[in-house]
């Protein structure tokens, strides 16, 4: 007898995609974990020790501690995007995506599998950075639940964004152009390593147009209760971005854009 699913959620598919994507991380464990630990250590040595020794405090917080939320956000954004975009782009590139497209899976199930795995990896890396930072400075987290909420929401929404990028990209250059040319500059200009109070008034106003500023500010507030913008504005902003990305992904699967001719 052949048993097939009725119209219920295909949990097995979600799990299969999720495990498959997580296995990719296990295969590159050294690169996945050692790299962020090394990079974070370097940031602390260069920014925390060398530069930080000349900057006593920012907003009442030691410079080394001040940059921790920014470092976590930098890692979250770049890893979420690169994990998710590569996760869907590579099957497209190699042709193995045929299997997902011909499987009895809904948009939600595909997204849960790919984006869930990408976000999980990004969150793990974010937490590794947090732990690594603990070796260099004394960590203080005023609102751990808000911190986790920020980390999870950011990882999910930017993994969704990466997923969209992976579907849109039709070559490897496009895949790397958004993280390299848009996200990294926005993170560096979004107050990751400085407070916007240090900028001239014009640049302070311009900085407010940078969406990453809201993320960094919100996450920093969860640590030290200091922020450039209201924490709720940050939370609502990232939540809205998540919804917009979900809408775009739904439209992609409905129309078959770049997936089903």
């Amino acid at each position, binding site marked *: 007898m052949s048993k097939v699913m009725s119209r219920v959620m295909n949990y097995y*598919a979600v799990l299969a995609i999720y495990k498959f994507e997580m296995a990719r991380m296990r295969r590159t464990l050294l690169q996945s974990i050692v790299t962020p630990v090394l990079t974070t250590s370097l940031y602390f040595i260069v920014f925390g020790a060398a530069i930080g020794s000349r900057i006593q405090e920012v907003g009442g917080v030691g410079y080394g501690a001040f940059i921790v939320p920014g470092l976590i956000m930098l890692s979250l954004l770049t890893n979420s995007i690169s994990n998710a975009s590569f996760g869907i782009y590579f099957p497209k590139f190699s042709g193995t995506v045929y*299997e997902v497209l011909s499987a009895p899976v809904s948009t939600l199930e595909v997204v849960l599998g790919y984006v869930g795995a990408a976000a999980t990896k990004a969150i793990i890396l974010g937490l590794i950075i947090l732990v690594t930072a603990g070796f260099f400075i004394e960590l203080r987290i005023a609102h751990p639940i808000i911190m986790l909420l920020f980390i999870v929401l950011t990882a999910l929404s930017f993994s969704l964004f990466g997923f969209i990028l992976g579907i849109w990209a039709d070559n490897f250059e496009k895949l790397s152009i958004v993280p390299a040319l848009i996200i990294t500059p926005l993170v560096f200009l979004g107050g990751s390593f400085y407070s916007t109070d240090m900028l001239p008034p014009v640049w302070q106003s311009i900085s407010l147009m940078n969406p990453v500023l809201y993320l960094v500010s919100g996450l920093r507030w969860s640590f030290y209760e200091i922020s450039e913008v209201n924490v709720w504005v940050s939370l609502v902003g990232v939540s809205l971005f998540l919804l917009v990305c979900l809408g775009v992904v739904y439209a992609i699967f409905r129309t078959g854009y770049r997936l089903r001719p």
Partner: protein
Amino acid sequence: MTIIEPEVGSTILSVQQLSKVYAGGFEALKSVNLDIKAGEIIALLGPNGAGKTTLISTICGLVQPSSGRVLVAGHDITTDYRITRSLIGLVPQELTTDSFETVWNTVSFSRGLFGRAPDPAHIERVLRSLSLWDKKDNMLRTLSGGMKRRVLIAKALSHEPRILFLDEPTAGVDVSLRRDMWAIVSDLRANGVTIILTTHYIEEAEEIADRIGVINHGELILVEEKRALMAKLGKKQLELELFEPLEGLPTSLAPFGLELSANGLKLIYTFETTESGENNISSVLEALREAGITFKDLHTSQSSLEEIFVGLVNQPADGSARGATK
């Protein structure tokens, strides 16, 4: 869980007025109609770009149809995609595999993707039946092309489909492996699996298919039982090698439509055998004897499926092909 077990002989796949026009305006499928019965093996033949892969891809959900509908076990592939896709297994034309995965993991992944609970015993059966068991822990990149092809079949069978699409399954496969594949197809059929395959190897269709469909320029120009097709469209010829060359055919032989070779040493008689087995060979031989023409050797031949196929696809695309069952 819904349980669907199509009855052998019932219609398991129904393609109705299916058309596909790609974004660039290319009409890949033109109002294709096709009914396939549970448990049969149908081979789709056609030159490159004829629409074979587009037809399969549309049924499997990889390509969006422009118009028409497809029913699998009575379920629409668009509205009931969960049911229809779980009944279908697809072995694509290209050798697309995840290089860094093991055979076991990739086949298990496929089973989960198609909504089936893990079943190591079934995966083992599939791998053993495809001679992949001793390779189960090998990474896919270490396998030969033929072995990768087997892995793709194993992936397609991992969720126990009732319909298996094989898109040129033996392309680039050596003769012995091709014969193994045919044996696998026979076993699957014995288990009631419906098989739809596209192929360039006419001998493959001739060897394993029950019915033959010919696609050309996006149209299904013919679907016929293999034996009936060969009987209907297959030509038979009698060739006679003469002792002495002829300058021309005697008028007494004109009614038989014989052909004389350029050197005058061979006579060719093309004939059709009726269902009761009647033909004019005796009359031809009698007429030759009366004309005093002697021959040193003779033999008969029947056109192969390949010749029938070439003859069909070379006809003008105006739907005038013989035996079209659209």
